[in-house]
């Protein structure tokens, strides 16, 4: 009951914050210099025709209305699932956003799996073998991993694995002229995904390994670990059942943000590897003053963030029974 009330309160809070942020976002983008109508018009046209087309386009986009009216129309349509009209692509936003979102999610899912498969065991091992040579090597490597800029690693990876030793393609999502379908198509895309996933994972592995290690070191210091060991439990059970479960809370926080981040494109990675995703679309939208696209994406991220916080709270209760939602 208390959990239900808590969730209801959070839901109301989400709605409230959503509307406040939507007003702020809308106002900010409307105040940016640059005219979206002019950006979509051809300029090499007779002025009288240009002016006529300009006014018609402005009216079609609803930009001839006062800003508050534009906001009400936009938010009403948005809540109905109509995200507006892309001035860059001259198509409804929902028609242009699907493919980049799929590309971004695909890349991020593989990257996340790769990161967690490596970082969690590595973090646990380094915590258990704290101050060993292995631990120190991993510490140095992980620091390098998350402190070297992504674009440097990307260019290095391209040079080594695509140019010096041409194992993987330099860029793109699929091989030019490839006509395979089904599993063959998946394999082709997977081959193109290797380098971007590798580059995205380097930073993630670095940071999450250190998160897990620190959390595990704290947990391994606890009295209940000593008790578990003194009970004669196997070291694996002590580490993976007793210590790791108690080290999960900070890991849940990071994991939740990674899940939310599944939908956030990386401008740098997508641009270097020509992976057509949401990051690139966001930048193009901003540069072209394609506010419908940008606002739709921004509001999507707002909802994800707000919902992510609730999910995180719920996840805390699952990994630690001491945490109650009413608290």
């Amino acid at each position, binding site marked *: 009951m208390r959990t239900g009330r808590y969730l209801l309160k959070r839901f109301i809070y989400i709605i409230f914050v959503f509307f406040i942020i939507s007003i702020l976002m809308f106002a900010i983008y409307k105040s940016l210099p640059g005219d979206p109508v002019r950006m979509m018009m051809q300029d090499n046209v*007779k002025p009288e025709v240009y002016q006529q087309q300009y006014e*018609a386009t402005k009216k079609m986009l609803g930009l001839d209305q006062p800003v508050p009216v534009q906001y009400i129309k936009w938010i009403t349509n948005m809540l109905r699932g109509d995200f507006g009209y892309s001035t860059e692509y001259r198509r409804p936003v929902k028609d242009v956003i699907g493919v980049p979102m799929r*590309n971004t999610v695909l890349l991020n899912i593989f990257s996340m799996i790769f990161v967690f498969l490596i970082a969690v065991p590595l973090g646990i091992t380094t915590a258990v073998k704290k101050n060993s040579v292995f631990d120190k090597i991993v510490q140095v490597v992980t620091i390098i991993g998350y402190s070297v800029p992504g674009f440097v690693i990307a260019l290095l990876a391209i040079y080594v694995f695509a140019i010096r030793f041409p194992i993987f*393609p330099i860029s793109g*999502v699929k*091989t030019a002229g490839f006509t395979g379908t089904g599993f063959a198509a998946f394999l082709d*895309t997977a081959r193109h995904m290797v380098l971007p996933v590798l580059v995205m994972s380097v930073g993630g592995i670095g940071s999450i390994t250190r998160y897990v290690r620190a959390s595990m070191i704290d947990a391994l210091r606890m009295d209940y670990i000593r008790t578990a060991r003194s009970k004669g439990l196997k070291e694996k059970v002590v580490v993976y059942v007793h210590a790791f479960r108690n080290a999960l809370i900070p890991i849940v926080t990071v994991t939740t943000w990674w899940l939310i981040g599944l939908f956030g494109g990386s401008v740098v990675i997508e641009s270097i590897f020509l992976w057509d995703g949401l990051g690139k679309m966001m930048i193009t939208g901003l*540069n072209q003053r394609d506010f419908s696209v940008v606002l739709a994406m921004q509001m999507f991220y707002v909802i994800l963030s707000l919902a992510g916080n609730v999910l995180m709270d719920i996840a805390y209760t699952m990994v630690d029974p001491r945490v109650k939602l009413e608290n």
Partner: protein
Amino acid sequence: MKRKLLSVLLASAMLVSLTACGNNDNGAVTNNESAAPKTESTAPAEENDDAEASEPSTESTAPEVSSERPTTPSGQLIIGTTTDLEQDFYDPIYNNSATNYKVCGLLHGYGTVITTKEGEWQTDPVVVADLQTAENEDGTKTYTIKINDGLVWSDDSPLTAKDYVFALLLESSPEMMGVDNYAATGYTTLEGWADFNSGSTKALKGVHLIDDMTFSVTIAASELPYHYDLAYASVTPRPLAVLAPGCDIEDTEEGATITGDFTTEVLLETIGNTDTGYRYNPQVVCGPYKLVSYDASSRQGTFEVNEKFAGTFDGVKPMIKTVIIKTVTADTEINELQAGTVDLLFQISGGDSIEAGLDLVDAGVAQKHTFFRYGYGKIQFDCSQFPTDSENVRQAIAYCLDRNEFARQYSGGYATVVHGEYGLSQWEFVDSKDWIDENLNTYEKDIEKAKEVLAADGWNLNASGEEYKDGDGLRYKDVDGELKPLEIQWCNSEGNPVSELLGTMLPDAMKEAGMELKATTTDFPTLLSGINHDGETTYNMYNLATRFSLQHSPWYYYSMDEMYLGSLNDNWILDQELADAAWALKAIPGDDDAAWLAAWQNYQKVWNQKLPNIPLYSDEYHDFYSNKLQGWDTSSIWDWTSALVYAWVTE
């Protein structure tokens, strides 16, 4: 034609000699020692065959090839482009990205009027059986065009005059404007266009369907005379049966009209449907290539030869069976060529990329082809703003910049400098070389000269209002009793190497002359709003680049008509002498080269003095391509889509 060929040869000889002379009047700073203004190629020589025989030859600049041109289409070519190909294949009005713009030209052919490799306007003899011109008493001009029998769409359906008339009506109609707000700007010069476009009339007065193979277009008197008036007779057909099924074209006394269920709703389905619409998935085309597939996730397009295509104006049919267009980045494009993931990179500029490409050429991995850009990078002045409303101030800024050094540093040596509003590939330039050397100011860097022109303009005071002396810093001028400083507000776009280089080369020199350059870096939309006076701030100058249209019409760009200010006249310049010099070009008949050249020279002279822009550089573009591509020959006015039809691949 002969005269222009001679011009090209002369230009070749001239530039070779200029390059040999090193520091030259003409400002060429190219690294390419054998660079000619038209083209250069490293491919081996080819025997002439039928297909090439009628192609305008450029002799020393023509491509050399190592195999015979096949007689049936074969092979595949992967073209890398730094601009994404979008799924938008109707025309540039919907999507004017550079790649889509060109791809539309591959899909939609059979235009009645084309431009040759030399940039000459002419009717396409493959399409047009006969063109009759009549100048009417009311000042209008009528072109009556008879289409050749036997032309077909890619689905083998016959192509008739109705398809041409339909295109004219469709793309002028209010119904079409309802399809994603199509900007009906293609045929605005037609008599009665405004009434038809507004929906006041159902028939377009300036268009008539005469018979199944003949139609006419009448140009409004207000649009005449016009130097490029043959371009008014240019119409590209659209498949009536596909875009307006069940509709027909009917001719009336008031003009041609579309009968049947011709509504925006119908067009939204036939053109605007994102799966099957002609805009996204055109299946019935008449260009040299047809769309096979578009992959949205990788933004790759695959195109195949349209077997029904009757040929270019000189009878050439495409011989590369499959063409794939994919995106590349400037950082790794040369690596993609080396790895074989692309076969052709076109219009490469910038020293680093060019040097990397030349390394591949030296290693025998690739071939190259070079040509000069038909346009230039520039400092563009806002001539309505104080103090750049003064031509002396604009000239003084020009005297503060070593443009040859700028072009060399910016391009790595692969660029040239011009002194007027022209490109090195223009025949007018080639014919005027000596005249330009004698008559145009080259604005060599000269701070003393800058001080001199500023002093002559009244910038003689210092901050205290006393007479300006060297060392006083900023110059001031008494304007209606108010002391105004010589500050130049410069707006530039972020991440732009031209801005960065100007930022290192200009400020100190301008300071020495008594000016202060105040820079603001913004994104491009903000810069555009500054140029258009839409934003809160207006600036004195911007750095931009421009490409001349094949219908380059300076009379619009320097018109003093208020309506043109900020639109086509984006210098906001109100100068009667410049406007008159430009306007004098408009009425010269298209075939009167002598009169055109004289007026052009006068226009360049006035322009060079008024200096609404400072030309900074004109790139020497490089095409790099794999050894399998043969017969590749592009120029600034004969782009990669044109060259593609004439080239072939050896597998």
